[in-house]
């Protein structure tokens, strides 16, 4: 997979922006899942994902190892998310001052927000494996290749991720029930 990343990255650097399309296609879900958990709302996540991809495109020449595109992209998206969250916070504070009681329509949650929020809470090493496996369309052995680790380590990480996710999702469910009862 990273071999083809490399090919498209080089195409982009050679001045074929249209070939960036393939990289967007490959990594959009990864980014969206990663960001949706952080934002909890679909529009913000999409906006941040777009911004991350655009930044990645214009900074491609700074990417030292084309094989590391995925990790590099996640790094960019983390920075973008932080910036946007700060902006949103400021905006919310302003709005709070302006209209105390006015009800703002709640933003549209992404389709499986609970899952994405749980992924966002995973430790970095586990989250990356989950993202790449289920959102990047990598097979487990491709994930192993990407991160240069034995397949056994991938499944081990994935097992831990599963356990944590199940736990997190269970917790969320409990909280929801509690909210309803209240």
């Amino acid at each position, binding site marked *: 997979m990273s071999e083809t990343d490399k090919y498209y990255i080089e195409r982009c650097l050679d001045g074929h922006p249209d070939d960036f399309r393939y990289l967007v296609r490959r990594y959009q879900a990864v980014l969206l899942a990663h960001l949706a958990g952080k934002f909890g709302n679909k529009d913000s996540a999409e906006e941040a994902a777009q911004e991350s991809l655009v930044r990645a495109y214009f900074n491609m020449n700074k990417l030292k190892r084309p094989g590391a595109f995925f990790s590099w992209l996640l790094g960019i998206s983390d920075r973008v998310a932080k910036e946007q969250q700060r902006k949103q916070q400021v905006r919310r504070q302003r709005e709070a001052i302006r209209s105390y009681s006015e009800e703002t329509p709640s933003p549209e949650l992404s389709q499986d927000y609970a899952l994405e929020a749980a992924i966002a809470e995973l430790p970095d090493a586990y989250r990356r494996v989950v993202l790449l496996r289920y959102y990047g369309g990598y097979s487990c052995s491709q994930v192993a290749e990407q991160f240069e680790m034995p397949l056994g380590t991938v*499944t081990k990480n994935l097992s831990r991720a599963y356990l944590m996710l199940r736990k997190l999702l269970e917790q969320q469910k409990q909280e929801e029930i509690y909210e309803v009862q209240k």
Partner: protein
Amino acid sequence: MNCAECKELLVAYVEGLLDESQEKTVSEHVKDCKGCQLEVEQSTNLRNRLVKNGKALSESHLEDKVLNRIIREQNVRLKAGAKVGLGLRLRRIIMEGRITRLAAAAVLVVAVLIGIHSLTGGTVTFAQVIEPILKARTVVYDFIIGEESNPVIMHEIVVGTRIRRTISNLPGMTQILDMENGKMLVLDAEGKTASYVDIKGQLQEMTKSYIGFVRKVLMELKDSPNVKELGEREIDGQKAIGFSGRGRNEEVSIWADPKTAVPIRVELRLGQLVVVLKNFKFDEPINDSQISMDVPEGYTLEEKVIDFTKGTEEDFIESLRVWAEVLLDGKFPEAIGTENYMKQIPLIGEKLAQSGLSKDEAAKLGMTLPRGMFFLQLLEIDEKYHYAGKGVKLGDADKAIFWYQPKGSENYRVIYGDLSVKEVSEENLPK
């Protein structure tokens, strides 16, 4: 297989990564173990959920949005790049050389003409010392605008309506002016080129004959009651007697040898412009070829491209832009005015000396500064202006850098750092 062993392989099991025998073992254990069965169920559910969500998100259509944004952004960058490119181009243009150098020098004509012109309203009078100027067939002197500590000196030879001028910080450049016909011949000894410059229109109106004009002024001064004696003073180691007179907007002092009455020094204060004439020589023998309007032998005539007949606010704004963008890397000069402009000439010349652009472009750009300066010189003498561009960057729309009151207008015109102009009443002027 016990439950712990089973749990260990659970994810590999639901991911389908186990080999046949391992898979069989797990399946068999799960069949008989309710707890592990539940585990498998939950893991499979989670896996399905992940796969489903992954698939859903993969079907997002970020592609077009991202690519559109990239294209938009790229266009913006290209435009910014083009702007930088334009800056570089301007830099190259101004470096072009001769024509621009000629044009840079040309503004000095204006300085001289306006200076003399303003004397018409003068009421100063002055007796014997004017004799030599009135009667001399030729007058030679040095002409300095502004501070004398670090002066740009124009050396002028005046014969009738012809002037031959050299400028201290433009070595190799000579201007020959034919005031009668509103023409200037500029010679560049370095490149052996010659060029004609039109100084018709407003400029020529002002004064048809240079020395004739000086003489006319002096005649007027002769019997004026407004002349003050300044007493004696030493000038350049020479004893001198002084007279001064004040007009509406100008102040003139003339110093002369008390014994021979030969003028030594003339100081003109014209609004914001200060001019000094000194090192006079009268009736020096001048060879006709020195004031000939013909292109000297060995020189090539450049196409006549310089038009110097007007200077508008627009020209002035353009000259501010060029001054900031080309000469000072995006900052407005600390001070403007004829004196400061003259001090910039070597810098322009320096930049010109190296490049190679089309002559038309170079000439156009070369005209920008002098034309703008012409406009400014009119303000220096007639109206007051205020300059506040020191430290301001080109493009700064919040800072007023220049304002003046046009003749006959109640309001002021204010120019901002982004070179926009607003009409503003006096009480709303920047502080």
